[in-house]
């Protein structure tokens, strides 16, 4: 490794102390969870449903251009709310403590072509456990991109800016394929395994329902506004997909975020796991509205440290987490959305070409692990 490890100045004891301090932050939020938080998520869910109803209602008259605009904008926001602040966070179990069977990670289904069950496995389990570990966390480049200097360059990578753009536009399908581990499973023997077939079937069913609702039933209900409604729904899905793709790219791709070697996580302690989450994630700075529309994934660092804390608490947690970054002299990667999106895209472009020799901008953490 040519780069410097930005955590090299920390001793093993300091890392464990850091872990204890983070645990204390977590415990404090859990002890204080209550009525206000429950009221918050219920309010958001009710608002999302009302906004969707009203928007779809307006779209019944979408041959009238202002109605098209208002309906499309409303539906886009409703879909973003469903996926980000509600779906992503409910499926993380952030609201399971309420014991409300209707707002629970085991029962929630979202407005997305990937069935919740499959997404929970690839996202909650694989991505959140093995965050940014090359070869373990497929969120790094989604298996279709080269995202680190150490990955071998191949001429096929020249096309990755284009793949990334296509993936952004049809992001929910990309995620569904990714959750299915389609690339790996298209191999003949795996394609036939009953387990894969059952999962592929579930995705097929979900896609069929989603497409039927968005592109057949609602346009039909609009009667003479069939085509404008169809266009409006397509646009809303496109807006939602590009938005969530952008937000998610900002979480782990911007410059300054680190990736890790497989062997670096062997025998990882709790403190080391926390440290990896801190160094492997990046935030987006901005207004309250920005945090809300990103589903609080603008607090990606805090989310990765505490994926099961209610999202409305990340803002207050962030202040304490940031203080720990300063205390331990670590870089807290954050910036406004345009800057972070540019940074992530810049990397996609840069790594589509072979490495320019000595310059390496993404440092690696390669820790000497003390055998326990």
């Amino acid at each position: 490794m040519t780069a410097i490890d930005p955590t090299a100045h920390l001793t093993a004891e300091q890392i464990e102390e850091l872990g204890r301090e983070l645990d204390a932050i977590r415990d404090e939020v859990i002890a204080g969870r209550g009525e206000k938080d429950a009221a918050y998520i219920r309010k958001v869910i009710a608002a999302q449903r009302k906004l969707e109803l009203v928007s779809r209602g307006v779209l019944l008259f979408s041959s009238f251009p202002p109605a098209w605009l208002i309906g499309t904008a409303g539906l886009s926001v409703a879909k973003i709310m469903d996926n980000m602040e509600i779906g992503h966070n409910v499926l993380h179990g952030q609201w399971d403590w309420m014991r409300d069977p209707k707002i629970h990670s085991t029962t929630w289904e979202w407005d997305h072509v990937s069935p919740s069950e499959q997404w929970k496995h690839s996202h909650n389990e694989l991505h959140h456990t093995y965050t940014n570990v090359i070869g373990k966390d497929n969120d790094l480049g989604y298996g279709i991109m080269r995202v680190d200097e150490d990955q071998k360059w191949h001429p096929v990578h020249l096309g990755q800016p284009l793949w990334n753009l296509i993936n952004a536009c049809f992001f929910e399908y990309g995620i569904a394929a990714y959750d299915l581990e389609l690339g790996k499973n298209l191999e003949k023997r795996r394609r036939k395994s009953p387990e894969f077939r059952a999962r592929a079937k579930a995705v097929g069913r979900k896609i069929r329902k989603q497409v039927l609702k968005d592109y057949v039933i609602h346009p039909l209900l609009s009667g003479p506004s069939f085509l404008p409604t169809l266009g409006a729904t397509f646009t809303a899905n496109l807006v939602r997909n590009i938005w969530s793709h952008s937000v998610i790219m900002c979480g782990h791709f911007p410059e300054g975020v680190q990736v890790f070697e497989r062997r670096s996580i062997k025998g990882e302690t709790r403190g080391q796991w926390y440290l990896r989450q801190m160094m492997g994630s990046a935030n987006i700075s901005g207004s309250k509205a920005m945090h809300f529309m990103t589903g609080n994934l603008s607090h990606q660092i805090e989310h990765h440290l505490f994926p099961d804390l209610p999202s409305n608490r990340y803002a207050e947690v962030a202040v304490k987490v940031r203080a720990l970054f300063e205390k331990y002299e670590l870089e807290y990667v954050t910036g406004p959305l345009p800057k972070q999106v540019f940074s992530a895209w810049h990397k996609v472009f840069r790594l589509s070409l072979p490495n320019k020799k000595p310059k390496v901008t993404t440092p690696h953490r390669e820790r000497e692990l003390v055998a326990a």
Partner: protein
Amino acid sequence: MVTTPLLPSDYLDLASPLRAGADLRGRIEAVHPETGDAATIVIRPGRDWRGHTAGQYVRVGVDVDGVRLWRAYSLTSPTHRRDGRVTITVKAIPDGKVSNHLVRRAKPGTLIQLDQPTGDFVLPRAKPAKVLYLTGGSGITPVMGMLRDSEFDDAVMIHCAPRPQDVIFRDELHGLVADKKLRLTEVHTDTDGMLDIARLDELVPDWTERETWACGPAGLLDAAEEHWNEHGVQERLHTERFRPSIVVAGDGGEVTFSATGTSVDADGATPLLDVGEEAGVLMPSGCRMGICFGCVTPLKAGAVRDLRTGEITEADPGVLIQTCVSAAAGPCDIER
């Protein structure tokens, strides 16, 4: 198809949560204090409410500090209230999360969850000629439901409470006495001591001839059951216990995986996921560190301890636990 992945009811609930076809709920319409620590909650039940029989109870799901908790309370309203509302009467017990919330903090307008009424602590169709009610504390509540519902020619009640002001429904009971519909003996345990069941002969000489409904603290019911047995009239005694099993949170215990019929002893430090896997039960699992919620499983009975926070979770319908970070806190039953 119009609303996938949600159901039309998810949208209808926004406007009309008590409509026919919705999950059964109720709306609190009023809270009337009864004593210093008891209150009657007036509830408008959803349209699918099937109605109750006097003496029955209803399970209610109340959100306390954002957490939905279920408890059972006796219905105290007569069965055919004209306005369609029903009441439960709740006594705040020390450290009782739900009872204290309902008595002291519940606000009109709040939605609560309901089950259909149930329970066999009820009056028979054929009216018995002579009736005895033996009650203690909040054990009066199912009996009040009976008293408000039907009259008997000869009804006697012995009610135990610490002090006169602790007697729930005291004015109404004394009204019944004044109307000669009830003969009442109040035992004030702070001054009189606990009711000695042997005094029954003196208080109600013909008690063996009476159909008896008893509800109250376990000590009172145990003594009554023994007494009625001794006299060979146990078929005349009907009892209702409010808390049939009390969970004692300990450290480790026997873990039953009821779906597979496996039982093993577990210590208080080993995650139940490991305990299950060790015992050959097919357990769902994920990150094994408490973050992915891939291992959540229903806890059917008993209690578990969160290994990270030490927090105890007791079994309740709908309670799911993360088996990778929970250990047995006493005997428990995991649905696997």
